[in-house]
């Protein structure tokens, strides 16, 4: 019996739950100096002068550096096709561009001394006009980057057509887009800026030994860090060892290299001693990349009998002060534009802009939740407009099971799906008819507490970035197995899941499988962990490497037993190979490993999937909305998710739980806000409404398993589905509760004041 598909408890948990992991801040690093960055309190200002004299002579201070000291080329924009003038200096040079921009680095013997001295760096700022509102940034005479002469990072489709990324006919709206539509609904939708808030904040530590650098950092992609470091410091990759020790979450925000982290080795080299930087939670809120931050203008057209025909989405993407991956998110939004629906006529535009705010990055879902939120909200608005049950509109327009592989009008090819089944299942599990009856009863009674039922059917793309991932398996002389993986788990449970894959192939017990990850000296190549890619890339590589090890062992056993390899069977229960029908003539893994000589019993695989996969599902949320206070209580979250074949349903469920919480939090609670001068007003966890267990119901989760043909495991990614599906379901539930009061839409987060204002505004119209 295979161990795959079993709810195996996570091997890594006892450590995290008892003695704790070892994070960058915990590493012993003899003689390390501590780095603290001085950050701008202004959103946009010219730096008249920086006086570091007092700081330099403060107790324990080793050095103070400003932008003029750093002899590195500025960092180019992190987004492809971005306006090349929007570069980021390592420390501000002449201008600061957001609250939190780095102005100086103070290095001291202790962290306390560095913090004290950082208050003695005096910066004379000349305030400049600010650009905060992304819509206003498009045509503005104030530029975040004066050298660029514009705040526009790029426009889709125009700038993508000009570089050959999109065909010329994509440049303009198709004529007669909404022809044939009885009804066209339009809505401006804000997909607000959120802060990723990983439990572990950013940290980096560096040690130079001659020309060799060891760099510890809390990252999702250590091999990419190795590449960046080698490039930045002009050394070969073999001279750099990048290590991601235990990492306390990332959510996409720890994919790229930040100047805070990459400056640490520069400081360490300059001072010829190890150096370490660990940010505070306050710094993390200000300067760890933010997510989402789209303003969307959506138009959806169809017939009165519920058939969707045409969809248009115009996005303004806030990229923050230094455009990075955030600017590029709308390309993912475009890929997933039409969701689970067969809508044949579409048009998508984007203007990514720079503003005087913290840069935006990938955040759990990264561009796809924005697509799902838009289409799912619009389907509900359309359903309300034509007076049809939103479940019925969804059902009528879903891509049918006989259509796969299905290519959407924006050119994305979905591998396989069973969309309507997830809708049926969630409606049944939730008791949809009874819920609607209760809603009608409450509407009739007219009390303050009304019921809302929100649906969301989603499909999303996982492992969306082409490339291969590394995995190797080796059977050691003591009969244990060692795995090396290019994925870099930071909460996902790869150690357990990869052990299952090996145990399934080799028959070696899960506890006898060791998984090495996150160290570029131990793992030769790797891409890392993001975009829900790990199982279907790195997991498959490990699985295939294990298969190859079994083949090698079989041949070796055949030699030793003087038999034909085809006659050799692996007895997984007893962990030995024997001749078919003759169990007594056998070789154990230990014997084979010892007999394998210098070559060893090992295999390496770089698995490149032929394409991405597309998990899907339907979520239903029941919310009670207090129409007097605007307060919302989530009563139920019911989720049906299909991520293909599940290797460990317990881990998959954990991913769904976390995703549901984070997605519901965006819909209901979280927003990173700046005032009109660019001051962050939600810069700590008291003001930023990070969700807690008390605001969430017990989740009702169901899984379906439609295997994908894309990889031999049949597995898709599950890391982001929960976030993608739950956000619109919660928002739709809140809006649904208010529908009878004449409210058409409430932007996220659906906070009490927003709900109350929407009700008041609707009263005014009546």
């Amino acid at each position, binding site marked *: 019996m295979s161990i795959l598909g079993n709810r195996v408890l996570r091997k890594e948990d006892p450590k995290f739950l008892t003695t704790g992991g070892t994070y960058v801040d915990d590493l012993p690093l003899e003689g390390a100096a501590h780095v603290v960055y001085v950050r701008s309190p202004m959103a946009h200002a010219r730096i008249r002068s920086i006086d570091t004299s007092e700081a330099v002579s403060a107790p324990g201070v080793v050095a103070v550096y400003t932008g003029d000291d750093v002899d590195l080329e500025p960092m180019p924009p992190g987004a492809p096709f971005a306006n090349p003038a929007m570069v980021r200096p390592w420390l501000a040079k002449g201008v600061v561009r957001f609250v939190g921009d780095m102005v100086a680095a103070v290095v001291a013997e202790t*962290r*306390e001394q560095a*913090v*004290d001295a950082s*208050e003695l760096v005096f910066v004379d700022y000349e305030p400049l006009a600010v650009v905060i509102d992304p819509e206003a940034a498009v045509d503005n005479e104030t530029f975040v980057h004066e050298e660029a002469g514009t705040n526009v990072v790029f426009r889709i489709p125009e700038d993508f057509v000009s570089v050959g990324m999109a065909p010329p006919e994509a440049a303009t709206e198709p004529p007669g887009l909404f022809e044939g539509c009885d009804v066209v609904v339009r809505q401006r939708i804000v997909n607000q800026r959120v802060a990723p808030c990983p439990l572990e904040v950013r940290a980096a530590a560096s040690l130079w030994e001659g020309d060799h650098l060891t760099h510890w950092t809390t990252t999702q992609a250590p091999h990419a860090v190795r590449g960046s470091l080698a490039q930045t410091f002009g050394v070969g990759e073999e001279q750099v060892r990048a290590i991601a020790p235990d990492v306390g979450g990332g959510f996409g925000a720890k994919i790229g290299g930040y100047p805070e982290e990459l400056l640490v080795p520069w400081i360490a080299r300059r001072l010829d001693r190890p150096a370490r930087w660990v940010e*505070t*939670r*306050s710094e993390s809120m200000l300067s760890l990349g933010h997510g989402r931050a789209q303003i969307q203008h959506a138009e959806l057209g169809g017939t009165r009998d519920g058939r969707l025909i045409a969809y248009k989405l115009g996005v303004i993407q806030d990229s923050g002060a230094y455009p990075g991956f955030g600017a590029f998110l709308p390309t993912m939004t475009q890929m997933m534009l039409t969701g689970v629906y067969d809508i044949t006529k579409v048009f998508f535009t984007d203007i990514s802009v720079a503003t005087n705010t913290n840069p935006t990055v990938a955040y759990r879902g990264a561009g796809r939740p924005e697509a799902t939120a838009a289409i799912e909200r619009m389907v509900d608005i359309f359903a309300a407009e034509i007076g049809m049950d939103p479940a019925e509109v969804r059902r009528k327009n879903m891509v049918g099971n006989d259509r796969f592989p299905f290519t959407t009008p924006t050119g994305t090819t979905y591998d396989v799906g069973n969309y309507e089944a997830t809708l049926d299942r969630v409606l049944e599990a939730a008791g949809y008819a009874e819920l609607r009856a209760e809603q009608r009863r409450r509407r009739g009674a007219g009390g303050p507490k009304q019921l809302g039922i929100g649906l969301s059917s989603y499909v999303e793309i996982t492992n969306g970035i082409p490339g291969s991932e590394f995995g190797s398996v080796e059977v050691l002389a003591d009969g244990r197995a060692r795995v090396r993986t290019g994925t870099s788990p930071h909460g996902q449970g790869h150690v357990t899941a990869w052990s299952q894959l090996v145990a399934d192939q080799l028959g070696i017990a899960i506890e006898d499988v060791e998984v090495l990850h996150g160290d570029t000296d131990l793992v030769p190549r790797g891409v890392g962990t993001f975009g829900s890619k790990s199982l279907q890339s790195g997991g498959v590589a490990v699985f295939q490497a294990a298969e190859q090890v079994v083949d090698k062992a079989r041949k070796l056993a055949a030699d030793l037993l003087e038999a034909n390899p085809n006659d050799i069977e692996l007895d997984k229960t007893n962990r030995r190979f024997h001749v078919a029908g003759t169990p007594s003539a056998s070789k154990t893994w230990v014997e084979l490993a010892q007999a394998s000589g210098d070559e060893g019993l090992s295999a390496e695989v770089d698995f490149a999937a032929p394409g991405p996969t597309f998990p899907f599902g339907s979520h239903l949320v029941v919310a009670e909305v207090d129409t*007097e*206070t605007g*307060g919302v209580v989530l009563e139920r979250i019911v989720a049906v998710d299909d991520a293909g074949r599940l290797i460990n349903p317990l881990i998959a469920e954990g991913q769904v739980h976390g995703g549901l919480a984070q997605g519901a939090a965006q819909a209901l*609670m979280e927003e990173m*806000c700046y005032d009109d001068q660019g001051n962050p*007003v*939600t810069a700590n966890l*008291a*003001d930023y*409404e990070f*969700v*807690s267990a*008390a*605001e969430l119901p017990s989740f009702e989760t169901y899984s379906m398993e439609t295997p994908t043909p894309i990889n031999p495991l049949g597995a898709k990614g599950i890391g982001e589905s929960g976030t993608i599906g739950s956000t619109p379901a919660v928002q739709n539930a809140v809006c649904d509760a208010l529908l009878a009061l004449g409210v058409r839409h409430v932007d996220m987060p659906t*906070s*009490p*004041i927003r709900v*109350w*204002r929407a009700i008041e505004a609707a009263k005014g119209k009546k």
Partner: protein
Amino acid sequence: MIPASFDYVRPGSLDEAVSALAEHGDEAKLLAGGHSLLPLMKLRLATPSVLVDIGRLGELSYVNDAGDHLAIGALTRHHDLHHDPVAMHHAPLLSFVAGRIGDPQVRHRGTIGGSIAHADPASDLPAAVLALGGTLVARGPGGDREIPADRFFQGFLESALTPEEVLTEIRVPKATAGHAYQKFVRRAQDWAIVGSVVARVDGRVGVALVNVGPTPVRADAVETALAGGASAAEAAELAAEGLEPPADNNATPEFRRHLARVLTARALAEAGL
């Protein structure tokens, strides 16, 4: 997140604490549960040069039945007050409110004295003591002084205590005729966006509001209307009279006035009025 440097004193008795304050004056801050002071110090918004740690003075942790009223030691932690049988019996409002503060960690560390002396208009206990018509007892170099709750809260984070005084005891009348605390929050552990406290004491109805101005306030107009025979619904309509509520990320002044009316109506109903 690292406070500026400071000296630390841990007096062995209340009298020693009073002496320490007299010695250091307004350079010193009392440390009790630390749940208001330490975050401010970590953000360097507060930089006292001396911390006088009274957190372990067991003599100030008690809930006593004092005949017509309850006497509560200033260092009684929220968790203990919430679960104290004497408090539950004679001042169920106070016990209930203590259980609605923050989260379990806060309730196990934070003290009633610290919460009241900090005089945060968004805190729960100050409004409860106001609604009950309580009295605060302070010890200074010249001995004990009683301050009516109505005169205690003087401005934003500003109380009637002098820098040399230690708040030692909170006295509230026994009140078991009905009470309510309507605390409106987005998250369980948050400060109230607005809160409304109702206490029924000796035939009188006390109503106080949380987070609607620089100090916790009595809803005078509501109390007067009720005393004059108005219905609860009519009286609640007056809850926002005279308020100048703050604006923040969660609410505008207008929304706070609205919430004050809605929550007061609900609190009055819940208190059986």
